[in-house]
């Protein structure tokens, strides 16, 4: 008999706040984090706004030392701390009580601004900071900084399945625990704004020049954001035996690859639907049991059209309430699935639903399913779905504790 997989710790940093409660309060209040981008150079781009997070100081580090960290590490470290502390895995000195802790983490750009700085230094013939820039760029360096700071090691799987990677990371953690992994798994994702990726989306004219409007018929693009989110997953008996508080369960995971186009989903959303139905089947639930669904909802015409079609087919006529939180937090790419998983769990725990903000003329097929302000319901199951470049799809199903 496969044990249930419990969630015992949550932590996040988003453009709405430096932890889960600040992010959640901002979302429920209907705020958006959209503002001018100042952390990276965006001059010359068609769009120069997005959802930029505030970096917090880190106890025990000087500003000079903090300056050496990649922006990605500055976002990830506080999120990891909140998740481990919530799971009861930190000692009084803030070190992890476990010597080895498995990690599954998603990112698309690693510590990219360090890599960009390295390239510019090569072109300028400036050799002074090159070793430090190289050392802080790659994804394993952010993992190493987390491991070093909290004092553990262990396997670290870094999934780079683009914007679905955060969902894949949590799903893979679930798979590892089901396959026999005994200890807790720290799963999540991080993403920092960087020039290459911001300019890339701008070049594709994917960025919304004004407010991001997921599932609105007049939607015209996404808002890029940044952030980090981590969850502690473990077998239920492990959580119970050490007295950890169970915040919810991960009960289903579906992942598929849409092979139609590198950057566009199939118009009917067929592969996404397959991922959603797989997650439901794993959990043994019918769609009518899902009370809330955190949609990918980037605000781009093609994504939201395909996704709305799937959600209407699978959940239409039922009680499922839907919203995309990217209108408020921005699209955080590799971190999105992890941030949205946390928000889905928050909805399960509290019954409060993040509203679909910036909605003027809803996409007709799901118009009556989109959550409004101040909605509160009692739900037993909730889902989070993500799509990404390369055709990656991920669907996660959570149960209330």
């Amino acid at each position, binding site marked *: 008999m496969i044990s249930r997989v419990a969630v015992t710790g949550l932590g996040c940093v988003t453009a709405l706040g430096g932890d889960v409660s600040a992010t959640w309060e901002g979302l429920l209040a209907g705020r958006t984090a959209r503002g001018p981008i100042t952390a990276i*150079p*965006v*001059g*010359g*781009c*068609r769009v120069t706004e997005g959802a930029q997070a505030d970096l917090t100081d880190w106890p025990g580090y000087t500003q000079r030392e903090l300056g050496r960290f990649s922006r990605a590490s500055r976002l990830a470290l506080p999120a990891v701390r909140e998740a481990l502390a919530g799971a009861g895995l930190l000692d009084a000195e803030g070190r992890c009580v476990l010597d*080895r802790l*498995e990690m599954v983490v998603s990112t*698309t750009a*690693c510590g990219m601004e360090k890599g960009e700085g*390295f*390239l*510019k230094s*090569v*072109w300028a*013939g400036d*050799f002074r900071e*090159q*070793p430090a*820039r*190289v*050392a802080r760029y*790659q*994804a*394993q*360096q952010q*993992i*190493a900084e987390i491991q070093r700071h909290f004092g553990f*090691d*262990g*396997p*670290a*799987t*870094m*999934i*780079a*399945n*683009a914007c679905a990677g955060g969902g894949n990371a949590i799903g*893979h953690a679930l*798979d*590892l625990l089901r*396959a*026999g992994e005994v200890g807790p798994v720290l799963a999540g994702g991080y993403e920092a704004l960087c*020039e*290459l990726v911001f*300019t*890339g989306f701008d*070049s*594709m*004219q994917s960025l919304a020049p004004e407010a991001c409007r997921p599932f609105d018929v007049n939607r015209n693009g996404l808002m890029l954001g940044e952030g980090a989110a981590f969850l502690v997953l473990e077998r239920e008996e492990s959580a119970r035996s050490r007295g950890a508080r169970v915040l919810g369960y991960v009960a289903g995971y579906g*992942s598929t*690859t849409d*092979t139609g186009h*590198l*950057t566009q989903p199939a118009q009917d959303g067929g592969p996404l639907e397959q991922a959603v139905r797989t997650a439901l089947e794993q959990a043994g639930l019918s769609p009518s049991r899902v009370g809330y669904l955190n949609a990918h909802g980037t605000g781009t015409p093609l994504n939201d059209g395909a996704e709305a079609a799937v959600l209407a087919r699978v959940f239409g006529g039922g009680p499922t309430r839907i919203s995309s939180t990217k209108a408020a937090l921005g699209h955080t790419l590799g971190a999105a699935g992890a941030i949205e998983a946390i928000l889905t769990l928050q909805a399960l725990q509290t019954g409060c639903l993040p509203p679909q903000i910036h909605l003027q003329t809803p996409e007709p097929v799901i118009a009556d399913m989109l959550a409004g302000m101040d909605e509160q319901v009692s739900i037993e199951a909730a889902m989070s779905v993500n799509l*990404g*470049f*390369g*055709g*990656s799809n991920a669907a996660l199903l959570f149960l209330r504790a």
Partner: protein
Amino acid sequence: MSWSVLSYGVVSPGGMGVDALSRPWLPTATQSADGTRRHTTFLVDREAPDLKRSQREPRLRRASPLSSYLLEAARQALEAAPGVDRKKTGVVASLFLGCLVYSIRFYRQLTEDGRRFASPLLFPETVFNSPLSHVVTTLGLGGPVYSQVGDTSSWATALRTADCWLTNGSAEHVLVLGAEEFEPHALDAFHAAGFFRKPTAVSEGAGALLLSREGPGVALMGVADGYAFHSRNAANGAATRCLRNFSEEIPILDTAVGWTRTIKIPPDRPVVENLVANPCLAGTAAFAWDTILAAEILKNSATPKSLVIPYWGHTHQCAAAHLARP
């Protein structure tokens, strides 16, 4: 864990197929991007017919060299195992450098020409999982698909992912891929990272290992992953902890290159000299090749019957795998 190694695929500077790993490769002296030094490199012939044929696929006309390496290695492995149901085959790729060629080209273009003139066609090909998306589409694979990044040793993490899928039944077969593409800026980065303090040739290419829940021959028996080190001095301890996962009687294949040659294998453990003709730093591809060569040794020789293949990462962690002949 006991997963059958059904077949392999190799893209290397010596050509296609496993035999190319045992031939001497033609070295070239390649200038770093800053123009200040030259390093020995072994480079894949990107005009080779086996690689060019992938560009006949409409979707692959603009794809990176990395995409064609991955596709060719995967294709070889699948063609060598014709009975495999591709719809039940998962694929996991491990990448140390990722889409280097297009990422640097895209960034240079936006830096020099201005952000307004960045290419919307180039950008999607810079994304880590684009190459594997091309592979899955072209070969019609229907199982789970992960692109994984990290240290050179992330090849071991990919093997663990395959183990997870085969254990859970998410896939009947899993293609495990390691691949890297060369770009001269890598020489500048490796120099800055101190990789050239020991003489090291740099290379590129891909390796594919097709694992199956059932089958004859050599099997993957175990993977030890995640022994981190925060300095090169600490790597010996990480390697020792890693090797404790395997019986002391199992011989260890010597796979170290560059600075990882300073990592000491405990003196009481038997060591088998690696037969790789061209020791080089080729990231995850090199560890894929080492694993394939180990499988060949086990398949073709009376002894040993079992081998541990160390994956001493260059930047983060030590890992290893255990292959055996039943």
